[in-house]
């Protein structure tokens, strides 16, 4: 939280309205921008450009307050724990009703406010006009139109922040409700006054069952909390219906009335091109060919351009052809042929194995993948993909929302595991993380699989792919039945399709790559070093010996493949590359079985750590305990079936 004494300026608003872009404009600090609701999962802060003494906070998008989701709770915590100088509500100019419904609550907090109606360009294109002076007068705060992506209205925004004012309340609730609110507010003011938020606002949130406000009051009111709680219980008994719902409805009605009086919508004869594309993409008929087209384009860019052309250039021409001989030469002439030179440029050398794989093989593949993913994300295609994929995911106890982490997993499972936070229930997160760990190959691994099995034959690749899809569906199907809890039906917003902004995609790609490199290179080097140690100390041969019954007997692989499985624990793709080195010695069936087992085998070390971080040690280890035997089971079964059939 904010430890400095400088009061903060908080950006608050619905998901996907452009808070992160505005934040970037106002601070110069980059945060993850995407055309996908819910991508800001944590509060980010940075000093403001226009006023060095002010700190700006970007909060996760809130659909509504009182808080219900993790994102909303994070935002509520920021409101409760920061000394806020000013709230900047970022709203969507084309969705004024919804924006004002949130304003109706924020206005009660007694903090100076500014309302920025962003996406003014899209509102105009859709014929929505807002009488800004009238709205500003009604709310008694500065209101302005902005286009965050084009930088329009930024000057006015900074000057508005200086003029921020405590808003007039947008509504009076029913007289009876007002009475309860006043009573509770008085009690809060006496027993737990908040340094910056108004007691009335807290009372409304508390009556609306906001868990964050609840625990804040519990902490600060001491024994008087019982009194507050009694007031709330009395109020909800008197209300004939669900009290939070009742309060929310009255805010919605007030917001509707205000929105109607200050905005107008021209009747449009035909939908915009962006809307037409958006609809075609989820069309029951056109949606599928479009999806296949998109997948093919991604394959061409990542699979062909990234994994073949770029890897070829880097690995064969640059590293194997020029760099590695030069480095090896240099090292051996400098320090001679000994253990140290082996560590650097030997078979398991930090440079010849670790750095070469990290930079020449993995980097081009993930870079192209992240670019493709960024473009899809920014275009608004991802949420629509979740509509198309929903039915399939329903079979796995999930809903279409899981498509984002699953697709990202094809890039990097570790990063995807982190992204499961956008899912709404712990059950969905658990199932998704499990499936990611088990059956989703990351791009680095995919590159190796494509290279190895592609070299064998197309049908080998097909068998591998079918096995993966089969395992994915089967384990998803089982998980859906075994993990307790109910499936949540998909209800999702489909943000407008937008032309991706190159700068945005690049910034996002660089951000992801940076994260990836910081995470991957050290692990590659540690992994290589461990391999070197195992080899040096003669443990590797022992492991190869010990693994022989399983690896040779059950999987039918040469016993050296054991080494690949050990490597596989450090990184899955590392293991796959380990098998890749044996490629010439493998039969087609061995290649397929090896790749299937390695793909299913333990996720890389980094993703295991991430799993544990996200779901706890017990769950993480339990998944590991399921996945490892399962990988060998499936691998062995494939071996039996394939040797019988091939």
């Amino acid at each position, binding site marked *: 939280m904010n430890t400095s004494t400088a009061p903060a300026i908080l950006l608050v608003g619905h998901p996907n309205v452009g808070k992160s872009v505005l934040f970037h404009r106002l601070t110069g600090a980059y945060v993850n921008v995407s055309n996908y609701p819910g991508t800001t999962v944590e509060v980010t802060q940075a000093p403001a450009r226009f006023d060095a003494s002010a700190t700006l906070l970007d909060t996760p998008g809130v659909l509504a307050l009182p808080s219900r989701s993790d994102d909303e709770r994070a935002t509520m915590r920021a409101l409760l724990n920061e000394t806020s100088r000013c709230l900047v509500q970022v709203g969507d100019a*084309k969705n004024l009703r919804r924006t004002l419904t949130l304003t109706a609550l924020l206005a009660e907090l007694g903090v100076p406010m500014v309302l920025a109606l962003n996406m003014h360009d899209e509102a105009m294109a859709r014929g929505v006009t807002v009488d800004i002076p009238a709205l500003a007068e009604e709310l008694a705060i500065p209101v302005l139109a902005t286009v965050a992506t084009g930088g329009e209205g930024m000057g006015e925004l900074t000057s508005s922040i200086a003029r921020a004012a405590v808003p007039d309340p947008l509504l009076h609730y029913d007289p009876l409700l007002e009475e309860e609110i006043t009573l509770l507010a008085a009690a809060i003011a006496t027993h737990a006054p908040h340094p910056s938020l108004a007691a009335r606002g807290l009372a409304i949130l508390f009556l609306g069952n906001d868990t964050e406000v609840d625990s804040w009051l519990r902490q600060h009111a001491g024994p008087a909390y019982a009194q507050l709680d009694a007031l709330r219980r009395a109020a909800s008994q008197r209300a004939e219906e669900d009290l939070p719902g009742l309060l929310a409805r009255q805010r919605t009605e007030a917001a509707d009335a205000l929105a109607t009086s200050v905005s107008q919508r021209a009747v449009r004869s035909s939908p915009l091109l962006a809307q037409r594309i958006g609809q075609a993409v989820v069309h029951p008929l056109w949606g599928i060919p479009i999806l296949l087209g998109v997948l093919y384009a991604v394959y061409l860019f990542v699979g062909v351009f990234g994994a073949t052309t770029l890897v070829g250039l880097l690995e064969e021409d640059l590293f194997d052809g020029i760099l590695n001989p030069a480095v090896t030469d240099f090292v051996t002439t400098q320090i001679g042929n000994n253990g140290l030179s082996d560590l650097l440029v030997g078979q398991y050398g930090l440079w010849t194995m670790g750095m070469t794989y990290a930079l020449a093989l993995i980097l081009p593949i993930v870079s192209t993948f992240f670019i493709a993913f960024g473009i899809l994300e920014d275009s608004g295609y991802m949420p629509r993909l979740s509509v198309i994929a929903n039915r399939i995911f329903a079979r796995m106890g999930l809903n279409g929302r899981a498509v984002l982490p699953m697709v990202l997993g094809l890039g990097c499972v570790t990063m995807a595991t982190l992204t499961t936070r956008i899912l709404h229930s712990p059950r969905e997160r658990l199932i998704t993380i499990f499936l990611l760990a088990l059956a989703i190959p990351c791009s680095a691994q995919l590159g190796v699989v494509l290279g190895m099995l592609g070299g064998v034959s197309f049908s080998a690749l097909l068998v591998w792919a079918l096995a993966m899809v089969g395992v994915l569906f089967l384990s998803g199907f089982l998980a859906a039945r075994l993990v307790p809890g109910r499936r949540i039906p998909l209800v999702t917003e489909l943000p407008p399709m937008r032309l991706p902004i190159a700068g945005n995609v690049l910034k996002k790609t660089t951000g992801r790559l940076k994260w990836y490199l910081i995470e991957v290179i050290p692990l590659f080097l540690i992994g290589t070093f461990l391999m070197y140690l195992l080899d040096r100390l003669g443990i590797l041969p022992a492991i190869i010996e010990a693994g022989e019954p399983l690896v040779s007997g059950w999987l039918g692989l040469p016993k050296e493949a054991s080494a690949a499985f050990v490597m596989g624990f450090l990184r899955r793709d590392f293991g796959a590359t380990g098998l890749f080195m044996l490629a010439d010695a493998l039969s087609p069936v061995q290649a397929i079985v090896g790749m299937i087992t390695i793909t299913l085998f333990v996720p890389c070390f980094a993703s295991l750590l991430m799993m544990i971080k996200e779901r706890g040690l017990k769950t993480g280890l339990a998944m590991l305990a399921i996945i490892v035997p399962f990988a060998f089971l499936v691998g062995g079964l494939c071996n039996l079936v394939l040797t019988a059939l091939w």
Partner: protein
Amino acid sequence: MSPHHDARLPLAFIPPGEEVRLAGLGDEIDALQREQLTAYGLAENRPLRVLQQKPMTVILAEEVELALEHSVARHIWVVR
């Protein structure tokens, strides 16, 4: 007024292209999801435009495009 004029129909049964008003959310929808739907803009009396029904119900509420599973759209009541 013809009797069918204010007859309530489930949102899932409205053919694409029609504009309707929200009449209410059925009791089958739990409190939490009800709040969520309201927050998305599904409040009583608001106009909605049905864009498609397959593979999911897609509607336009104000300028928000929303996709809902049929299991939810079945319990959302609208009038024509």
